């Protein structure tokens, strides 16, 4: 860790400056300058109480920082999702501990954000301000007091502030302000309590302290139960902890990221809501859970997948809400956007696209789940067979592909590869008696036909690579998934050549672009981090261990100060772009580390 001043551009912290805390239902983003700029309530996909990351004026935030120049360094308490921010000023040092607390005895509020301020040395004057907003800053907020505690209410939601030794609370300009001085050995506490459809709870100091301790202990226990002991263990476990924050505990679903509309290009229009669960990520997710010994999470996730997809079976939606629902209409919010990046969207219009690769990913997920010894009951088996039948009937159609292009559908190579994988896995599951065998011959025949299509139409002799879509000559990093999902062996001649072509054509240092060519959305984007980790894994599986390890080291150097990644990085500036923390990036990191560990033994 290196102490450095925090900075803001136009009132916005760099995306790289955000750490995440959470309680399994929602998350908060904490900037290096101590401001909590994102907090949806009650759930990760709900409207926000704080959204200054998307509109510094209207979004709302919880600021807490020294009232004089400072340098800052941060870390998570080891093996936890409890954040520790240390501020050092000319006059002293102070440590802020932030957590969304977990169960820990006593009558806990529906949700509770604790900010504990411990004086370490000298004297440090601090100021804080809470601007509670509801409904993405659009709801009318009522301010008042209960038992001397300030409260803010909107409809059936309420926030209360409980403070201990944190100065007088002043209500000013639709917010609460305070100032106090931390001295060596002092300990102040600010707790934001939330009520949804119920009265507020105002906890006592003893209960708050006990709950924070219990929260630490619960995270440590969870992290220590992870079985991975290969290289880069610290980064792998940090990724697992970040993913655990994206797991929606009430249902078992996993969100793609914790935010909406953080831009893929500053000032650009590629701003999407990622607070949904993508079928695309399912195979990576289940593989990561199984490899890290998260059997409970794997089971909950698989059953959530089967429950959610039941409504639309045999057709799959691209993404589902965290509660398993399918309605995700896109809506633009009247917010300025991160550094003016509009539109700010909620909902996701990609949900109803045809993306054929999802069938391969879901059947691969079922295969991995079954291969790990988990039970697949006959009803689920019949539905998996239904998916395979759907693939037989539709794999010849053009689709929108894994990248959800908004241009016209085409025959994407990766989609066809995953159709072959879908049918291969259905055959394998049938071979184990886990899905009905009645159409086994048809599945085999169609799998062979899909492979034939890929090998005939999606390979370019000129490029010496599988290309982005049939008949095209553009490159696409998603075809690396052919190795990861075992469409082909990484040592296969065409796969080796494709890995080379992508490394030459899409990679620049550690940065890998997703594809070349159009996608129907104006503007550009940064380098897609998951693709970089897929390249590591493709190198590793192909026996190119040194190249894999070197690229892995470069990628690990790109993480932020607390070990997190967003979706993309601007290769020129190194700034994070897109939603964060990004589940797919962390899943790809885990997968790449495990692959290298397995290959190098």
């Amino acid at each position, binding site marked *: 860790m290196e102490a450095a001043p925090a900075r803001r551009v136009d009132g916005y912290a760099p995306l790289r400056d955000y750490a995440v805390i959470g309680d399994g239902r929602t998350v908060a983003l904490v900037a290096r300058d101590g401001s909590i700029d994102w907090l949806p309530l009650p759930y990760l996909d709900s409207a926000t109480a704080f959204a200054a990351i998307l509109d510094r004026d209207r979004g709302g935030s919880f600021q807490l920082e020294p009232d004089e120049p400072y340098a800052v360094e941060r870390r998570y308490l080891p093996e936890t999702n409890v954040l520790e921010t240390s501020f050092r000023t000319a006059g002293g040092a102070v440590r802020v501990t932030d957590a969304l607390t977990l169960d820990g*005895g006593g*009558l806990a509020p529906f949700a509770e954000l604790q900010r504990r301020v411990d004086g370490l040395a000298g004297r440090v004057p601090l100021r804080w301000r809470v601007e509670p907003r509801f409904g993405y800053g659009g709801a009318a907020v009522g301010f008042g007091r209960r038992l001397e505690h300030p409260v803010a209410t909107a*409809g059936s939601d309420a926030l209360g502030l409980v403070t201990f030794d944190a100065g007088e609370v002043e209500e000013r300009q639709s917010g609460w302000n305070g100032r106090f001085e931390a001295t060596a050995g002092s300990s102040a506490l600010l707790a934001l309590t939330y009520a*949804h*459809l119920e009265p507020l709870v105002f906890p006592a100091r003893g*209960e708050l302290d006990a709950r924070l301790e219990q929260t630490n202990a619960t995270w440590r226990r969870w992290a220590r139960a992870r079985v991975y002991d290969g290289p880069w263990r610290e980064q792998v476990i940090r990724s697992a902890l970040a993913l655990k924050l994206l797991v929606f505990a009430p249902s078992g679903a996993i969100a793609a990221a914790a935010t909406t509309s953080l831009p893929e290009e500053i000032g650009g229009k590629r701003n999407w809501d990622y607070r949904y669960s993508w079928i695309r990520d399912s195979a990576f997710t289940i593989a990561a859970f199984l490899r890290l010994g998260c059997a409970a999470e794997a089971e909950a996730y698989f059953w959530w997948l089967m429950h959610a997809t039941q409504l639309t079976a045999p057709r799959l939606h691209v993404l589902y809400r965290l509660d398993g629902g399918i309605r995700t209409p896109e809506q633009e919010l009247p917010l300025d956007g991160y550094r003016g990046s509009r539109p700010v969207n909620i909902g996701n219009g990609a949900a109803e696209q045809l993306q054929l690769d999802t069938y391969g990913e879901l059947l691969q997920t079922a295969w991995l789940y079954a291969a790990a010894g988990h039970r697949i009951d006959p009803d689920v088996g019949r539905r998996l067979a239904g998916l395979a039948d759907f693939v037989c009937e539709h794999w010849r159609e053009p689709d929108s592909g894994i990248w959800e292009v908004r241009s016209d559908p085409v025959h994407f190579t990766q989609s066809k590869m995953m159709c072959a994988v879908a049918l291969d896995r259905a055959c394998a599951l049938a071979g184990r008696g886990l899905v009905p065998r009645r159409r086994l011959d048809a599945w085999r025949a169609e799998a062979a036909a899909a492979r034939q299509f890929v090998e005939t139409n999606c390979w370019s002799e000129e490029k010496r690579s599988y290309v982005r879509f049939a008949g095209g000559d553009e490159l696409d990093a998603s075809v690396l998934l052919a190795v990861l999902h075992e469409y082909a062996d990484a040592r296969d001649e065409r796969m080796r050549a494709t890995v080379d072509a992508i490394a030459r054509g899409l990679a620049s240092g550690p940065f890998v672009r997703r594809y070349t060519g159009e996608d129907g959305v104006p503007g550009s984007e940064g380098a897609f981090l998951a693709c970089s980790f897929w390249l590591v894994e493709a190198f590793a599986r192909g026996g190119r261990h040194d190249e894999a390890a070197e690229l892995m080291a470069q990628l690990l150097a790109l993480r932020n100060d607390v070990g997190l990644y967003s979706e993309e990085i601007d290769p020129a500036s190194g700034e994070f772009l897109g939603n964060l923390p990004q589940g797919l990036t962390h899943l790809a990191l885990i997968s790449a580390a495990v692959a290298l560990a397995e290959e190098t033994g």
Partner: protein
Amino acid sequence: MSVWGALAGGFAGTLVLTTTLRTANELRLTRIDLPFLLGTALTADRTRAKAAGYVLHFVFGLLFALVYYAIFRAIGHDGWWLGAVFGAVHGLFAATALVNILLPLVHPRMGSPLTRAGTVALLEPPGFLMLNYGLQTPLANLLAHIAYGTIVGGFVSLAG
């Protein structure tokens, strides 16, 4: 007029009262949660509190129905309309005195004007007309209690 009619009415009326308030909850009109308020008087465990709160709420619903029945007997009149009037009075009493003043005094986890620094978490007090739980709370509470009284009065009359 029969006591069994009053008890049946008390059960059905409490069912409707609880459902009405829950619906008002989901419609974002109020944060009132009577089973939660009652149950947390017994335990700090949220799940147990809700379960115990529902049981307590139904017990109170039956007890109030017996009080209605006693008054019907005393005045020699009953019926759904008289029940509705009783329900309105009951609702006003609940909002101004029962939940607003008496419950905080006996509830070990609810703050009252007499509360001093404690060691346990405190529940947000309801305030006059329970307005702390939302501006629509008095209306939702009154309608729910009128429905309760109407049902108790109707059942008593039907069981006559």
